């Protein structure tokens, strides 16, 4: 536990904070730079990469992951993790689709229901972690099983076909305003609202404080448990939103929808510079991370590598990002220690 004892985030005032946000911006810029370079290279081999239709396709798919990744980032910033997001997405997606198919609710009500369900599932995670003091890995591994089990239970062998949804419901995935796809706008709005909350409210500062030094945060009187609970609840809400976007994008929904997505979400967060040790990272980074991964997946297909390379690349990307994070963190701490010694 030596590292957290040295952590200077609160004791040393704002300097490391400024360092961290400078480095975070560097991370975001590096991601953008890599994407541009990658994009250029891919276009040389496959010019159809640079078409509006392809790029919007990539952006739309990435937006769904991005929304979930933003929620996950909130949790990771508090030094926790939520592995159950894919089950939340799947359960909300099926519930919304089924409710629409049965004409039990109209679209706006169904969407509200879906968001509410996501919020409730997130709150369950929050309660298990903060009230029952179960470590987040264990808690969310458990809820991953439970939520997915409930999803399979209510879905059974039924599949909601595209035709079962109200006409026009899935259009949102293909509509655009001023040339920008709807989904991208949704993701951008979420990022903006989230970032404002994180940067300018007390809650946001508390979130970072709890993640970077829980003991100090407790001493300072920050209600850590409430902060963590809120983070998990927001994560659930956003996972629910991602589930609704999933329905609009794919149309056909059954009990297995959204299986396997958690890796992409966590990878997006890690790649986006949200430090797994907690206490730093931005929502913009998480969203860019999702876009970055979408880029890579798309580039793979266009360049002719089979879909089977994708998993391995995700793994490498995660490992590289974590290594980079650890190096950065060590440098900051070394520098801060030097500063405080002076």
């Amino acid at each position, binding site marked *: 536990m030596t590292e957290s004892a040295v952590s200077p985030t609160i004791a040393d005032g704002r300097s490391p904070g400024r360092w961290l946000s400078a480095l975070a911006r560097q991370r975001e810029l590096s991601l953008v730079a890599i994407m541009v370079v990658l994009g250029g290279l891919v276009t040389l081999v496959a010019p159809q990469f640079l078409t509006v239709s392809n790029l919007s396709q990539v952006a739309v798919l990435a937006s769904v992951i991005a929304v979930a990744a933003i929620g996950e980032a909130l949790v990771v910033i508090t030094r926790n993790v939520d592995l159950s997001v894919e089950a939340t997405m799947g359960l909300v997606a099926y519930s919304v689709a089924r409710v629409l198919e049965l004409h039990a609710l109209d679209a706006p009500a169904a969407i509200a229901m879906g968001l509410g369900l996501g919020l409730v599932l997130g709150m369950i995670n929050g309660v298990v972690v903060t009230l029952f003091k179960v470590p987040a890995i264990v808690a969310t591994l458990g809820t991953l099983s439970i939520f997915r089990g409930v999803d399979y239970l209510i879905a059974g062998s039924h599949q909601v076909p595209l035709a079962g949804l109200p006409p026009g419901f899935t259009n949102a995935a293909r509509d655009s305003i001023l040339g920008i796809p709807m989904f991208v706008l949704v993701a951008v709005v979420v990022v903006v609202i989230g970032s404002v909350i994180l940067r300018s409210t007390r809650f946001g500062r508390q979130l970072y404080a709890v993640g970077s030094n829980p003991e100090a945060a407790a001493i300072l009187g920050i209600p850590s448990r409430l902060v963590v609970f809120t983070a998990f609840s927001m994560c659930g809400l956003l996972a629910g939103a991602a589930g609704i976007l999933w329905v609009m994008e794919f149309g056909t929904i059954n009990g297995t929808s959204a299986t396997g997505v958690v890796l992409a979400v966590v990878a997006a967060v890690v790649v986006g510079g949200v430090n797994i040790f907690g206490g730093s990272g931005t929502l913009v980074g998480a969203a860019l991370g999702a876009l970055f991964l979408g880029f890579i997946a798309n580039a793979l297909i266009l360049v002719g590598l089979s879909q089977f390379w994708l998993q391995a690349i995700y793994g490498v990307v995660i*490992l590289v990002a974590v290594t980079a994070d650890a190096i950065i963190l060590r440098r900051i701490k070394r520098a801060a220690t030097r500063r405080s010694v002076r």
Partner: protein
Amino acid sequence: MTPVARLLARWETLLVIAVLGLVVLGTALSPVFLTPGNFANLIAALMEVAIMALPMTLIIVAGEIDLSVESMAGLASAILGFLWAAGVPIWVGIPVVLAIGALGGLMNGLLVARAGLPSLVVTLGTLALFRGLALIVLGPRGISDFPDAFTELGFGRVPGTPIPWPFVIFIALAVLLGIMLHRTWIGRQIYAIGKNAGAARYSGVRVTRVKIGLFVLSGLIASLAGIILTSRLSSARADAGAGMTLTVVTVVLLGGVNIFGGSGTIPGVALAVIAVAVMQNALRLASVTVEVQSIALGSLLILSVVIPTFAHQAKSAIDRVRGGRPPPADSIKQGERAAT
């Protein structure tokens, strides 16, 4: 230490009672429960998980975690199938695959112990990486025409009994690793590292070396599990073993191992394996749907952490009321352990 030991002892007794209770339940639910054929069913498919749960116990006691075990099993299956299809004799393929398992574990170990990265994320990365490598090696193919001698390993029985060979392997490993953890100085070092890695280091324990060794062991055994899985199903697939990590971690935690490290026993985990196997078998014979079982497993996982926590807190509260020693500083934090 004694009150903690007592608590642990109680946990294992609880497990034994649970196993016996489940056996009674199973017999009541279905007349075929105690037949030899059913015993084999009951045990057979959980053995790969059981075998991987043993080194996982050591790793979690040491304060780390290895999420990549299922993918290493898949990679082992893929490489074994690839080599076999390419004409390499199976008895050459097996050592190669085991060596690769050890190498993968070494990679995990170096990243966690040498570079100091958090094991949760590293093994999440290798979970993806190893699975990806398996897919690259074997693609979507399934290799299935393995020699009977090889299939016998995963599928056959000890002659004259219904006991599957993998169960024998599991018991042998459990005894081996049990002795290592509970009777040797390595085991004491593992506990020390789990309780306080910094203090252990200052006491002369070679923390890095031990941790690397544990990850290598985990990779090696995961590879073995992959070989057994391939043999049992008589099929090598790149997606072999998908989903096993969850069950492995569940079984270990159910066995009374503390997720923060520093405590837990091999016999407890062995009992948890039997309990989970009996439970799943009994429930399936009673036609309880697998979704409900999944929900039950997830709830069990959470409960297995909640109950000791509450028991510990209750104990501290009782101690406080009795006016005894001051309550220990509440070191149970929310969230995952930070890297040490």
